[in-house]
């Protein structure tokens, strides 16, 4: 029976590969494949192939020689945390993710439970092998061993974790069936983990010297030394021992050492396998549900709608009351704000509170110590966030046409001119980005140093620059958002709108072309406003009114940006009106 399943898997892979190769006959995929291939070559292979001599060898992890063991210990600690989370986080019954077709064909077929698990495990080996290869290519500098050793090291760790995840999910389902609720189980595991952590902390307080109150002259060496002491003595080495075994093959320095390290891992894999196949837990019902969810998520992701991959769990309160009279594009803005609200969850707020508390504590400590460099640091951080919001924000916030184009038939029926549809669609992410940026500008205005290299920066100057930035950034956001929306309308096939949208490294190449194209168009769109701003600023500075120059320059640039945005909306509106779904999506 397993032979039939392997036959199915083998031919699925072959047919998928053939379909991808055939697709290369279309120029858009061929160009994408060439760009994607070149990208992969330059990123991963160039350094390890012929031109190796031209480049310096990758550096091993920068730790002092006496602490060479630290990476291994940290990796073991990370592995331990992941295993612990596997026992704490799950909240639903054990389920094996099959495709919907596999569920339809295999579950009613005379296939034993063990065969299904074996098939699933073999299938997961493909993903593990691919992940191992990818991480080996990406992490060329992570440890100095031979690439083959590192690849099989990844494989060993992933295989153990995959089996452990399955085994723990079966065990947790059994506990659930015996009446142990999720919260009780979490309390037990978290309590256990907390008790162990407390014991280690107490040991540290009694056995180790106190934590240094201030850094010494050697930078962060004191921290590394201290952590080294914690990990090399007391209870932690014993606690981490089984996890060190699993990650030991990755850190092997030679093939003999690797084989020695691999033997215990193989034993762990075999033990885990028997644990999994002997666990008498019904997974079929939960698997059917999981398969359905996975299929929906895949359809959403393939259609370019990553956010819809997370199905909304509960209704979101509208951001404002929408009444019937008024411009209809506001309805699209309202709808997309509700859509974005799905992702502003309690967890996000909790994270923001954590960041705020941490930043506040840091600020308080530094102010007590009289640290002067903090303002510059915070300002630099805010500048970085602003730049990120400008360049990455439009790619991350996709509650616009990129989200709604798979439902373009609904949009096409709406009695609205095309430009209004585009405006309503892009306004929600533009408004969200502007809100974040205004907040950052406010922080920047507060933290901007009053003195910079012995020059006094008056409040009026700080406020003027902040005002100019607050005026310009939302317009730049609007243009930056119009560009990917235009790309989605002009090249829908590259935006993966269809249900059976393609994947592969040729689509990665297409994405690269799109990303660079978008960046180039944004730069071109900003050239003229930037030039006008500079000219106005320089003229008025020459006359002795630099602040007025900033303000009037920003106003002139804003008029130009608004004109560009309006022209862009008109252009895209026309494209949307002429957009032929039958040619693109159906």
């Amino acid at each position, binding site marked *: 029976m397993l032979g039939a399943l392997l036959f199915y898997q083998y031919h699925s892979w072959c047919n998928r590969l053939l379909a991808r190769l055939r697709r290369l006959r279309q120029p858009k995929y061929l160009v994408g494949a060439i760009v994607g291939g070149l990208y992969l070559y330059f990123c991963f292979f160039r350094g390890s192939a012929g031109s190796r001599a031209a480049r310096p060898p990758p550096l091993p992890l920068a730790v002092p020689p006496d602490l060479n063991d630290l990476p291994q210990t940290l990796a073991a600690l990370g592995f331990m945390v992941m295993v612990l989370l596997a026992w704490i986080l799950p909240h639903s019954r054990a389920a094996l993710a099959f495709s919907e077709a596999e569920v339809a064909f295999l579950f009613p077929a005379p296939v034993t439970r063990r065969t299904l698990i074996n098939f699933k495990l073999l299938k997961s080996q493909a993903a593990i092998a691919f992940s191992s290869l990818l991480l080996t290519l990406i992490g060329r500098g992570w440890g100095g061993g031979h690439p083959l050793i590192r690849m099989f090291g990844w494989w060993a760790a992933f295989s153990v974790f995959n089996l452990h995840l399955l085994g723990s999910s079966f065990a947790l389902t059994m506990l659930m069936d015996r009446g142990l609720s999720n919260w009780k189980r979490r309390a037990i595991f978290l309590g256990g983990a907390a008790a162990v952590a407390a014991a280690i902390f107490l040991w540290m307080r009694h056995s180790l010297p106190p934590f240094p109150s201030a850094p010494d002259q050697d930078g962060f060496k004191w921290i590394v030394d201290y952590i080294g002491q914690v990990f090399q003595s007391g209870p932690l080495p014993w606690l981490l021992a089984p996890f060190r075994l699993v990650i030991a093959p990755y850190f092997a320095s030679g093939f003999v050492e690797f084989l020695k390290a691999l033997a215990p891992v193989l034993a762990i894999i075999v033990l885990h396998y028997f644990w999994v196949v002997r666990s008498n837990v019904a997974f079929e019902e939960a698997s059917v549900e999981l398969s359905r969810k996975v299929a929906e998520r895949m359809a959403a992701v393939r259609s370019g709608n990553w956010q*819809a991959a997370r*199905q*909304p769990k*509960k*209704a*979101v309160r*509208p951001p404002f009351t*929408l*009444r*019937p*009279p*008024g411009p*209809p594009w*506001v*309805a699209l803005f*309202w*709808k997309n704000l*509700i*859509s974005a*609200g*799905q992702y502003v969850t309690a967890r996000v707020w909790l994270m923001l509170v954590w960041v705020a508390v941490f930043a506040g504590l840091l600020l308080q400590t530094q102010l007590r110590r009289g640290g002067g460099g903090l303002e510059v640091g915070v300002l630099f951080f805010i500048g970085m966030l602003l730049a990120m919001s400008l360049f990455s924000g439009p790619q991350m916030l996709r509650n616009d046409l990129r989200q709604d184009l798979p*439902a373009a*038939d*609904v949009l*096409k*029926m*709406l*009695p*609205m*001119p095309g430009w209004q549809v585009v405006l309503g669609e892009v306004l929600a992410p533009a408004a969200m980005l502007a809100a974040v940026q205004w907040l950052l500008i406010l922080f920047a205005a507060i933290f901007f140093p009053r003195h910079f290299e012995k020059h006094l920066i008056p409040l009026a100057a700080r406020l003027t620059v902040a005002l100019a930035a607050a005026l310009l950034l939302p317009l730049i956001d609007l243009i930056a958002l119009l560009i990917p929306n235009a790309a989605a309308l002009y090249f829908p096939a590259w935006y993966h709108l269809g249900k059976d949208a393609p994947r592969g490294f040729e689509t990665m190449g297409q994405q690269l072309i799109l990303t660079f194209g978008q960046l180039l168009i944004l730069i071109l769109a900003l050239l003229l406003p930037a030039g006008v701003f500079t000219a106005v600023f320089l003229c008025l500075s020459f006359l002795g009114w630099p602040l007025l120059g900033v303000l009037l320059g920003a106003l002139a640039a804003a008029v130009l940006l608004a004109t560009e945005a309006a022209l862009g909306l008109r252009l895209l509106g026309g494209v949307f*009106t*002429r957009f*032929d*779904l*039958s*040619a693109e999506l*159906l």
Partner: protein
Amino acid sequence: MDIAPPRITETAAPPPQIEVAGLTKLYGDLPAVTDLSFVVRSGEVIGLVGPNGAGKTTTLRCLAGIIPPTRGAVRICGFDLARQPIEAKRRLAFFSDEPRLFDYLTVAQHLTFIARIYGVAGYQETGRQLLEELEIAGKADKLPIELSRGMKQKLAIACGLLHAPQVIFFDEPLTGLDPIGIRRMKDSILKRARAGAAILISSHLLHLLEEVCSHVLILKDGRKIIDGSLEEVRQRFSEQSGGGNLEDVFFRATGETKGEA
């Protein structure tokens, strides 16, 4: 409840609401619909029938403004769909076989959204009545994911009817509905027709069309084979070889035999 199809009176003909002239749609070089012309007047319910691939859905999508025709003209309530799309779209509603809803809007939020798009004043009362009529009034705060397929279909219908369209297109309207839903749907179609709406229904359920349609249009390979009132079409084909119902007419008109089907 009486669900007899609306009768065509002998008095002055009602105004045409849907006018199609020479509609042609090509997918690349492949003709999906070729030179299709017909008129649907106020109060008429026309059944669009044909074998798979006949071009029914393409026709409906062209008429609803979802896809542009390659050639030909479509007028909705006197407005040219290509030149005055906003005015034309304001007056029509299209119901696809698969309900098209926004995952993150609740039932009530869907109605609010549509009310703003179409500028429906006092939509709360109309919306409440529609939800009650369709028996989903208790689901106002639910997301589509929490609704069954039939309920999603009902929500799509409520959204489409909120602005009281004068022209309605149905593509397989009974898919996913339970028997009570089917009966209510038939009643609803006839109620809108009596109120003066022009309705075009595409369906393979010929007995449904026989119950609700006043007219029928048969398509095959993208071309019109015949259109006219049910009586006219029946008469024409019964003259040729005798026989009665729409199913027999369909098989004779399309040149298929029941055995082949």
